[in-house]
């Protein structure tokens, strides 16, 4: 095909594409109106189709002409009300306009296109038979089959094969005669066909031309004129060496440049409606395909954004919209069940906010289930259970942005295309955009995207580190923080491996810029106004990366500036830097952190220039810019810096402090908190007993102790109190020989008993694992280390049992009723080896069989495995993987286990815990190591069962 006049052709293409862009929206409006036809609208579409047809005819684009003609026919019928537009008809029309667009975009080969599949339904409608859109066209197949034979005989020349097609194909009973080779398609075969026939691949559309209002161009011209004038003035002034005038000219140029910049920016601004306009179609087609009814409301079409942003926002938005349609909005039947309107609503909204443009996609669908997302992320190994535990709902919802996360339960061809939300996020990150999800299960999801107005020129904060200037985009900048030297120690802390700074009660993770980009650490000496080397912070010191402050000290600085620091304590030395810490608090879409730099400088508007190929591997930079003095400053990419410093994006949010604290809390919670009373018996050994076993503590004089009948007693509340010491049965040092003694009173077998001890006494809470083996002996349960003292945990129960066996004889024997012949089995869920063994011993002593699980999840598995044997569950509350509450909940959910008694063991029976336990189905609460009560309770329940 030869098209002579490029200019006319180009004009046709542009005009047609404009028409087509309108046609789509208009067709949708026509569909919506239904029988209530808006003539103006139909006329408009009709005219559009007509102009395309006319133009195509003039250009000799026969196929385009044919298709637009068929469309025009139908539109004509609608216009004259011979045809009521329904979704099917509009569908066919839309498909037609899509094809037209594809052909016009590929105009050179448009005459080779086969449009039969579009023509058949169009003509059918025109003839009055509403036919479903053509089934997948069978055409290509027979052609392929037919080709080989003639080719062999006819050698190279291909055209006869095409003519031969109908003949060999026709006899085949199952082959539908392809109407394909329209006369026009033979033309290119005859003339040397240069263009490759493929052309099916969708091409990325990037506008190369732009419509700008003439008035804007005029003002640009004026400004350019003024700029030239000012330049002349400047040259003159320089020639005459007139300083004062130079200043005036400088100001003038400054003004003109700013105006010019603004005007040029305006030419790049495009209404976001250009992108939004395609979504009604997307939503319509998708919802139809999924059998959902969805209404899309678009607000803020005229909000303007930079052309480059408009172009790149298209794909992420499409993805999000498709997600909303596919996953967000439920099926109409489900919506009805939930009491919602059957028709789902998606609102797409753009508006200005604080110098940025916000695009919001809101649906009233099922929302995102943070728990489900977290569970899925854990099962995919993206986060750990511990991380999930300490995440807020918002964070959980935002997990969806993690790479490798696909939220669809089943992969649909709509959204499950392997590209997840992480791609959306990456794309938005590139644009300097931020994305945030707020979701309420059952009530819908709102996704907000914040975008800068333009990318080309951005305001930046300039900072200096290691003698080089760097720019931090103002979008990422939260605030600037300067910590005076004398406060550094107080405000900078270490949580786990990370350094954090206290900022208005929150903890902010810190990164030292020099460490992340691996340059020499320097600092700025304010007094001498010069840069000095931070000697200890060498590049080679890799440890510094993990711990910028704590493993390298700033001795160099200290010597030079504060040779005599009063406080020479270790931590203080590390922080006694002459200069204060300058921190730039930056935020990315997923986190907020502090970047430590040498100096803070001005804020400037800078022009972003890309870095060369050789520097693409340097992920820490978003580009470079040229400063006023002609030198270059690198622009920092704060989100990549965070990645390089291994700040993970999910736990480094604005709640960094909570996360850090929660992590510490979690570590403690993993091991049970145990309240202990610490005391001594001899001077050298420290002992402890569980605080909750202690009734009271009395101060006595040694003289009050009476030695009667081989037993020590004292008068106590009108009776006599039996007294024991740890060394009565344990091989420990004897009770110290001093006058002032303490009596720790316990109540065992409903009788008070006093343990003689000396001070100092203290009540503490510990989380340390109790060592149940090393120091175990009669009367000693085990040992723990408290404040660097090995402390033996006294088993008062055992001492009493040894010394006063008759006390226990009086008590009803807890032995299992052997008559039934069944030994009841008890499942113990407890993560601490020590407590598990203790409880197990209580049980086995009493004749029960015990199955033990080291955490809730294991216990649950065991319960299922041994469902028939287990008569009772004794569980700890704080356990990894599945805690006691969860275990109880899981057990109670299964009707099979409804009758199994569940006893919860706790070290500290807090009221709210008890309430919570009762709520999930715990039968009894007992305090760990209170053997008596626990066993009484166990017996009680077992008796009821047997």
């Amino acid at each position, binding site marked *: 095909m030869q098209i002579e006049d490029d200019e006319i052709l180009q004009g046709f293409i542009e005009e047609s594409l404009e028409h087509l862009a309108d046609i789509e929206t208009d067709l949708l409006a026509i569909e919506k109106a239904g029988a209530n036809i808006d003539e103006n609208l139909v006329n408009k579409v009709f005219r559009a189709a007509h102009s395309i047809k006319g133009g195509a005819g003039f250009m000799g684009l026969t196929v385009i002409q044919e298709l637009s003609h068929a469309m025009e026919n139908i539109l004509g019928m609608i216009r004259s009300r011979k045809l009521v537009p329904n979704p099917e008809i509009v569908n066919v029309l839309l498909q037609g306009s899509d094809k037209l667009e594809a052909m016009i975009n590929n105009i050179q080969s448009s005459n080779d296109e086969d449009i039969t599949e579009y023509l058949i339904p169009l003509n059918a409608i025109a003839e009055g038979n509403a036919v479903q859109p053509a089934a997948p066209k069978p055409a290509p197949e027979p052609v392929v089959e037919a080709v080989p034979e003639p080719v062999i005989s006819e050698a190279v020349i291909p055209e006869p094969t095409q003519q031969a097609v109908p003949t060999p194909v026709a006899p085949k009973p199952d082959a539908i005669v392809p109407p394909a080779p329209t006369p026009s398609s033979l033309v290119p075969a005859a003339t040397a066909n240069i263009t490759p026939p493929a052309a099916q691949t969708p091409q990325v559309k990037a506008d190369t031309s732009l419509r700008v209002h003439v008035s804007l161009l005029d003002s640009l011209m004026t400004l350019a004129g003024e700029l030239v004038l000012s330049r002349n003035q400047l040259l003159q002034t320089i020639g005459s060496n007139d300083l004062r005038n130079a200043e005036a000219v400088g100001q003038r140029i400054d003004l003109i440049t700013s105006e010019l910049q603004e005007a040029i920016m305006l030419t790049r601004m495009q209404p976001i409606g250009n992108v939004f306009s395609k979504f009604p179609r997307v939503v319509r087609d998708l919802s139809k395909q999924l059998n959902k009814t969805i209404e899309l409301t678009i607000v803020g079409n005229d909000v303007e954004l930079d052309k480059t942003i408009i172009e790149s926002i298209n794909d992420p938005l499409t993805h999000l919209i498709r997600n909303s349609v596919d996953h967000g909005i439920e099926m109409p039947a489900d919506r009805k069940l939930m009491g919602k309107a059957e028709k789902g609503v998606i609102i797409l909204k753009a508006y200005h906010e604080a110098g940025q443009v916000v695009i919001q996609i809101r649906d009233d669908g099922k929302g995102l289930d943070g728990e489900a997302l977290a569970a899925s992320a854990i099962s995919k190994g993206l986060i750990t259970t511990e991380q999930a535990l300490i995440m807020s709902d918002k964070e959980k919802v935002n997990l969806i942005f993690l790479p490798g996360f696909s939220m669809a339960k089943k992969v649909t061809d709509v959204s499950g295309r392997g590209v997840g939300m992480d791609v959306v996020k990456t794309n938005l990150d590139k644009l300097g955009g931020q994305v945030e999800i707020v979701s309420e299960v059952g009530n819908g999801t709102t996704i907000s995207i914040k975008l800068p107005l333009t990318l080309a020129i951005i305001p930046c904060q300039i900072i200096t580190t290691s003698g*080089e200037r760097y720019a931090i985009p103002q979008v990422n900048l939260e605030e600037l923080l300067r910590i005076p030297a004398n406060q550094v120690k107080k405000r900078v802390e270490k949580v786990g491996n990370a350094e954090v700074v206290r900022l208005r009660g929150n903890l902010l993770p810190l990164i030292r810029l020099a460490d992340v*980009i691996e340059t020499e650490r320097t600092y700025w000496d304010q007094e001498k106004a010069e840069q000095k080397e931070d000697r200890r912070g060498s590049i080679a010191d890799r440890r510094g990366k993990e711990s910028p402050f704590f493993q390298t000290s700033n001795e160099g600085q200290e010597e030079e500036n504060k040779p005599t620091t009063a406080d020479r304590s270790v931590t203080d030395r590390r922080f006694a830097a002459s200069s204060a810490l300058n921190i730039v608090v930056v935020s990315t879409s997923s986190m907020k952190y502090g970047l430590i730099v040498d100096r803070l400088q001005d804020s400037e508007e800078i022009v972003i220039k890309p870095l*060369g*190929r050789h*520097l*693409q591997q*340097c992920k*820490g930079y978003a580009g470079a810019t040229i400063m006023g003095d002609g030198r*270059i400053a690198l622009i920092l990419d704060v989100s990549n810096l965070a990645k390089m410093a291994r700040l993970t994006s999910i736990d480094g949010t604005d709640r960094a402090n909570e996360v850090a604290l929660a992590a510490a809390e979690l570590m403690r919670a993993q091991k049970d908190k145990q309240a202990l009373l610490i005391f001594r018996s001899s001077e050298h050994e420290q002992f402890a007993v569980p605080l909750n076993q202690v009734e009271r503590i009395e101060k006595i004089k040694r003289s009050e102790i009476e030695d009667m009948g081989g037993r020590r007693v004292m008068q106590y509340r009108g009776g006599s109190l039996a007294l024991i010491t740890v060394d009565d049965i344990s091989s420990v040092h004897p009770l110290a020989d001093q006058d002032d003694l303490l009596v720790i009173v316990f109540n065992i077998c409903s009788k008070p008993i006093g343990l003689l001890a000396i001070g100092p006494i203290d009540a503490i809470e510990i989380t340390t694992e109790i060592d149940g083996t090393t120091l175990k002996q009669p009367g000693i349960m085990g040992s723990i280390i408290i404040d660097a003292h090995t402390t033996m945990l006294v088993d008062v129960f055992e001492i009493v049992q040894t010394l006063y066996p008759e006390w226990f004889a009086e008590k009803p024997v807890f032995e299992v009723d052997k008559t039934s012949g069944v030994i009841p089995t008890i499942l113990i869920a407890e993560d601490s080896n020590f407590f598990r063994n203790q409880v197990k011993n209580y049980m086995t002593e009493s004749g029960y069989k015990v199955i033990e699980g080291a955490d809730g999840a294991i216990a649950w598995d065991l319960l299922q495995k041994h469902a028939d044997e287990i008569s009772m569950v004794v569980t700890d509350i704080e356990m990894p993987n599945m805690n006691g509450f969860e275990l109880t909940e899981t057990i109670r959910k299964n009707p099979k286990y409804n009758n199994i008694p569940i006893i919860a063991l706790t070290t500290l029976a807090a009221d709210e815990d008890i309430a919570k336990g009762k709520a999930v189905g715990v039968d009894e609460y007992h305090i760990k190591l209170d053997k008596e009560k626990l066993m009484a309770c166990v017996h009680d329940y077992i008796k009821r069962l047997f």
Partner: protein
Amino acid sequence: MNEKKTTTNKTLVELATFFVGDALCGMDILKIQEINKLMDMTKVPQAPSYVTGILNLRGQIVTIIDLGKKLGLGSTDATLNSRNIIVSSPGEHVGLLVTRLSDVISADTDKIERAPANMGGIQGEFFSGVYKTDDKLIGILDINKVLRIEEQGH
């Protein structure tokens, strides 16, 4: 092209020659955009070691490659004699930092010999050939290789 048809029937190529360390190298002068002595570079932390820095060349950001380091001949110090040879690379300009410039010579392409086999190792791969003049030997740089190779390394 005309030269080729006329008298000598030889293809002449103008070689710009320069020193990289002590080695005399040359490249087709037509591939050179300009030569300057701007040394006010901005260091790029974490850049490949052969990248000296970046330079503002009339509003364009130019990556400067230390040719000495790139060729494995040791680093080039910025002195009064050192120069940046700016060459264009797809989509950008790249500067090659050399120790000092030498003459421009006309070389007969027929006389450019293949790089000797013993020019192996890191240096050898960047040379497309050697050219002998009366008194010296010029290694002819394959600029495409010099500019390309870095990408795969990382």
